[in-house]
């Protein structure tokens, strides 16, 4: 039975579009399609602000970018993947420039680069402070050039079709009409992003619900390093809206209620009037977020109706530089906080921003499940290890999107056709969706209540600092929530653009993500990068210089296994910032 598509890419953000273009360029004969629950230009890549790192300076080198990434990751990344990544990043960013991306420039016309957290040299390319927006729109508009790339716009994938040990397509719901179809494909690439919405305060859009992670998890592929959740140090208090790291790179200071640059108390260097690379406000995100928690415990943070905050001070940076390099930051503060950063302090707090963990892939984006690939935030290669450096994730989309695209294309070119069994699976899934959600009239659990309960328990048990107790309790609560989810009440039984149904399916995905995070975190009895255990405060390379792999067992339980980290040239050392 012929497949409908050769390669089906789930998710139309930076990674998904880059993969589609890569396939259209290297193998135009293949039928490639992008299926996404939102139009591609709505993908969350659009809200990335700061920049994308790629070595261009004469005084910079690939080794230095690699070392910064390796030490930033607290040695949990796979160094072969990092080496491949830093080598390919400049080339990918240049390719994007050739496709029209409006990178900011030096006066002589060359690409401009700026400083960024955790990087020893200036290597972050940027497009004002809307880098993700420009990258996504460039990729989307370029993808329109390739007429063979088909798009399923506003289709929600609910399940991967697996038979004969390989993935053979998906089951998806067309939002507009409510029809549920099996779309067969020889290879599937997951580019669905992370799952920040499992926490209550996040920079993430509402669409970031870990859909791809859950799809892979339920299909039997492992989720790697899920316990590593990055808190971005500067998010606005009520909305969680991101205030880019670039604000600190251009000279912003983090001060507590006494106007004191408190980071100097946390082994991050000495305060200087101008930003110093890898020091103070340009330290790595995990250390900065942890410093906030300590300041809060000491009572040095400021109380607001939306919790404790510290201040980001941009007043000394000057209106001219803010309008040139941080115009979007100024716009956001004015709209959402009614504050002008030129003359006032911006209230900020750490908010969940990125998931270092995700679907386990190799250096070419292949998961252990045949025919299944993943790239972008949904995947864990891993280049980010226990903590990601700012401006590494945008080039990650390009580098691994392209690699996964090419690898999936090669696989699909010689893969067998789908088996008839998957069509039966498709019909079963359609029946399940109709019975459990659409036709159900006896639900008792309100959807928003369940979601709030999940987010609260994640914040309490798996926040910046965790303990064995909080994690175990959290895992129990999540199990309870999963049961309660079985009785979720839906008001909307329509087939036409039923967003309540989508929200319910997304909540199911978030519950899977939460389960993987909590179990992985409980088993990792050490502190490393973004995973900080109050009961195990030290890094334990002897036992835990390894990736956690979370598997969903056939009986529904979660099994944790370990995979050693690949070390090539940089043996584990101490992470030093500000010295």
């Amino acid at each position, binding site marked *: 039975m012929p497949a*409908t598509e050769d390669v089906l890419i789930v998710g139309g953000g930076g990674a998904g579009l880059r993969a589609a273009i890569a396939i259209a360029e290297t193998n135009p004969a293949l039928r490639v399609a992008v299926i996404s629950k939102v139009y591609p230009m709505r993908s969350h890549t659009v809200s990335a602000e700061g920049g994308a790192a790629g070595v261009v300076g004469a005084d910079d080198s690939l080794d230095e970018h690699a070392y910064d990434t390796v030490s930033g990751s607290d040695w949990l990344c796979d160094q072969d993947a990092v080496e491949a990544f830093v080598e390919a990043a400049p080339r990918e960013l240049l390719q994007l420039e050739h496709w029209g991306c409006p990178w900011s420039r030096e006066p002589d016309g060359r690409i401009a680069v700026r400083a960024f957290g955790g990087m020893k040299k200036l290597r972050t390319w940027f497009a004002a402070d809307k880098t993700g927006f420009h990258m996504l729109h460039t990729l989307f508009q370029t993808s329109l050039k390739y007429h063979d790339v*088909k798009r*399923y*716009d506003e289709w929600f994938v609910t399940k991967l079709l697996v038979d004969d040990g390989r993935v053979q397509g998906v089951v998806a719901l*067309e939002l*507009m009409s409510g*029809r549920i*179809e*099996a779309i067969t494909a020889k290879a599937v690439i997951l580019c669905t992003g992370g799952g920040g919405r499992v926490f209550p305060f996040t920079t993430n859009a509402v669409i970031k619900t870990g859909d791809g992670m859950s799809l892979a998890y339920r299909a039997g592929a492992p989720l790697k390093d899920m316990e590593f959740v990055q808190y971005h140090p500067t998010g606005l208090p009520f909305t969680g809206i991101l205030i880019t790291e670039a604000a600190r790179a251009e000279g912003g200071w983090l001060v507590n209620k006494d106007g004191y640059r408190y980071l100097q108390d946390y082994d991050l260097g000495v305060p200087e009037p101008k930003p110093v690379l890898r020091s103070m406000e340009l330290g790595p995100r995990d250390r900065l977020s942890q410093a906030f928690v300590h300041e809060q415990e000491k009572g040095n943070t400021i109380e607001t109706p939306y919790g404790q905050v510290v201040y980001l001070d941009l007043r000394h940076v000057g209106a001219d530089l803010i309008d040139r390099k941080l115009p979007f930051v100024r716009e956001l503060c004015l709209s959402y906080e009614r504050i002008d950063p030129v003359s006032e302090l911006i209230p900020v707090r750490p908010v969940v921003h990125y998931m270092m963990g995700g679907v386990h892939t190799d250096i070419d984006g292949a998961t252990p499940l045949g025919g299944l690939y993943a790239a972008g935030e949904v995947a864990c290669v891993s280049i980010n290890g226990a903590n990601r450096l700012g401006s590494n994730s945008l080039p990650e989309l390009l580098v691994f999107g392209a690699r996964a695209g090419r690898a999936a294309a090669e696989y699909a070119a010689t893969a067998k056709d789908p088996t008839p069994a998957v069509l039966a699976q498709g*019909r079963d899934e359609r029946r399940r969706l109709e019975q459990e959600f659409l036709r159900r009239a006896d639900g008792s659990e309100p959807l928003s209540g369940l979601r709030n309960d999940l987010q609260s328990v994640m914040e309490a048990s798996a926040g910046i600092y965790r303990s064995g107790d909080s994690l175990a309790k959290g895992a129990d609560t999540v199990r309870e929530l999963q049961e309660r989810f079985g009785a979720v009440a839906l008001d909307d039984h329509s087939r036409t653009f039923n967003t309540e149904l989508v929200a319910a399916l997304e909540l199911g995905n978030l519950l899977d993500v939460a389960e993987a995070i909590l179990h992985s975190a409980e088993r990792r009895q050490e502190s490393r990068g973004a995973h900080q255990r109050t009961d195990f405060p030290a890094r334990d390379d002897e036992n835990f210089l390894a990736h956690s792999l979370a598997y969903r067992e056939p009986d529904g339980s979660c099994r944790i296994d370990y995979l050693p980290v690949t070390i090539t040239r940089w043996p584990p050392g101490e992470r030093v910032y500000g010295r």
Partner: protein
Amino acid sequence: MSDRPAYTEFHPRWYRRPISTWWWLGKRTYLLFILRELSSLSVAWFVVFMLLLVRAVGQGDAEYQRFLDRVDHPLVVLLNLVALAFVTFHMVTWFNLTPQAMVIRAGGRRVRPSWIMVSQYVAWLIVSAFVVWLLVGA
């Protein structure tokens, strides 16, 4: 299951809101736009009037005098006043919109939009002064 699912390009149950003939009364900006477009009728009227005037002048003193008597009628005067108001509106909107439509460079930098606007008014003042001098002074 259909064997070739694709994006549904059209669905009969989509609701298309009808647009009323009076759509332009719905918003102040729409009304101003329609008035601006209608003002071109006034421009056309003045052109016609000017041609008739010139023809009357060319036909000699007597004909010219008869023409002036005819247009002295209160309705014609009112028409011309209304047309003058519309033409002024036409000019003001035109001058104010020009900077949006034209980006002028001088010495490598963009000329500021307010300058483009003001320079048109200045030019109009100069031409008007000249015409007034022709009619009154000379």
